[in-house]
């Protein structure tokens, strides 16, 4: 009997899963059976008569949730496996839960702390031992934060940004280790200054990327818009003003400064002491390669395998070992979006004549 068929088709229609054909079939069926059509119509009205869901107070709920997340209260019962609960719950498992909840608490503390300092509701943070604010990312993770003045900071993996409690009162000063992209809120009365190991960058209101990892040979500033003024720590009389789409690369080794002029040294393979170049776009209209990491794209822009290895270590939180010096200077270019480590290594290896092994958190690259 077609009756059953009608119900099946009607269900598909109501669930939003019917194909065009099925809808047509249902329509035909209902036209042939007016009695069924009547029932179908009333069921459809009933199905669709959903009152709008009451808008819940999510702030309240979410805050309570965060509280539980940081308290670790949730660990008392629910996560245990169903069978044999009692026998297996002691010892290590409980320690794991405690450790996990402490870690979670720490994360939440940082996040809440930031949220609170942004809104300015917390004149004296709950952790008086720390005289300022510091946010770090581990290898393998990135973070985005907002400074009290509204400035947006994307913090790449293995990086740290810190600022004092008086941030924003007269000036806005932050200290950066690693890589970050800044979108600075314009405020001429309170200059924004970024301190790195090698350079200081003074900003009025602009977006740019700073890369200053201690384990790398260079510090890079790429300006996307606005203007920045860079001072070299090693010789404070040298000030360089960048225009949009310019990039300044400074060697982290300052010994060269005692020598003569500080302009581009075009010796391939050795980083120039200080070079002014253009921000790089892989193709026209694309966004600058220097800020692609903020879009979760892993970019190698003519980088040697040793540089690639450093990036992989930070990006995926692994240790990369290259065996064989001849491999280290081969250059790679490529953009990876959301690929996992194996996919990236596989692609690199296709063009690189090397083999790799991944063992836990270790990657070994050999000829």
């Amino acid at each position, binding site marked *: 009997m077609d009756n059953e068929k009608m119900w099946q088709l009607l269900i598909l229609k109501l669930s939003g899963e019917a194909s065009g054909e099925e809808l047509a079939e249902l329509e035909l069926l209902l036209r042939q059976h007016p009695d069924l059509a009547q029932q179908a119509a*009333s069921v459809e009205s009933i199905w669709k008569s959903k009152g709008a*869901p009451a808008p819940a107070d999510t702030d309240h709920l979410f805050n309570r949730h965060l509280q539980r997340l940081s308290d670790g209260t949730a660990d008392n019962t629910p*996560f*245990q496996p169903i069978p044999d*609960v009692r026998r297996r719950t002691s010892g290590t498992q409980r320690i794991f839960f405690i450790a996990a909840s402490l870690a979670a608490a720490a994360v939440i503390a940082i996040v809440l702390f930031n949220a609170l300092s942004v809104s300015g509701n917390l004149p004296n943070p709950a952790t008086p031992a720390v005289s300022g604010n510091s946010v770090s990312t581990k290898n*393998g993770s990135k973070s985005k934060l907002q400074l009290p003045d509204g400035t947006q900071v*994307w913090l790449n993996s293995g990086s740290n940004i810190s600022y004092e409690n008086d941030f924003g009162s007269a000036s806005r000063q932050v200290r950066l280790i690693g890589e970050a992209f800044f979108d600075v809120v314009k405020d001429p009365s309170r200059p924004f200054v970024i301190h790195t190991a090698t350079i200081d960058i003074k900003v009025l209101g602009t977006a740019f990327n700073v890369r200053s990892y201690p384990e790398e040979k260079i510090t890079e500033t790429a300006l996307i818009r606005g203007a920045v003024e860079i001072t070299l720590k090693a010789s404070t009389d040298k000030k360089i003003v960048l225009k949009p789409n310019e990039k300044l690369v400074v060697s982290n080794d300052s010994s060269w400064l005692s020598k003569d002029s500080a302009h581009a040294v075009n010796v391939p393979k050795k980083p120039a002491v200080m070079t002014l170049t253009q921000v790089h776009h892989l193709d026209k209209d694309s966004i600058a390669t220097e800020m692609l990491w903020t879009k979760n794209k892993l970019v190698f822009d003519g980088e040697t395998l040793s540089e690639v290895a450093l990036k992989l270590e930070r990006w995926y939180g692994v240790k990369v070992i290259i065996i064989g010096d001849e491999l280290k200077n081969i250059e790679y270019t490529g953009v990876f979006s959301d690929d996992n480590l194996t996919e990236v290594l596989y692609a690199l290896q296709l063009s690189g004549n090397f083999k790799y092994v991944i063992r836990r958190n270790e990657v070994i690259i050999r000829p």
Partner: protein
Amino acid sequence: MEKRELIAQLQRKVALCDDMTAYRGLYDLLHQELFLFSYSIIKSREVAEEIVSDVFIKLWRIRNELLAIGNLTVFLYTIAKNLSINHITRNYKYPKVSLDSIEVENVANFDNGEELFITAELARRIQKAIDTLPPQCKIIFQLVRESGLKHKEVAAILNISELTVRNQLVIAVKKIAASAQLSIPPVRNRTLPPTA
């Protein structure tokens, strides 16, 4: 943007950037339906709320592995289901219990729509019909109608086949149709057969 797309996007942000705003976004998008789901099993608002919170705690803890999860909605529902079943069977001697042996609360919502098709009397009748559905059938109906889940998703969450999902929906809808028949507006009543 479609809800599923939005969820996938937030999922990626949480996984790659530890993005707390995206995490909050996921919470806002899903906590209410997860709450209803859990509540229909647990029948306690406090406990259901705790379970939803536990689901999101779990989500935060494993955030760095989230990229490996194909359908986050299914994943979260599955955790919610397991935690809910765990909770009510915690004191049972043999805790492995299927959803079908648990009495399920009716959380379906019928409202006087704009056409005022649903009178209070009809709504009461429909609710009564849903109350008499078998537990799993009730859950399936609610997941598809109230939460808008795909049959495939419901099948994955409850560990049953898509065909079962569809057949259970047919059972539910037939019951509802039968309950509604007595009170269908008189204008169109002529064409109705005397009984179901």
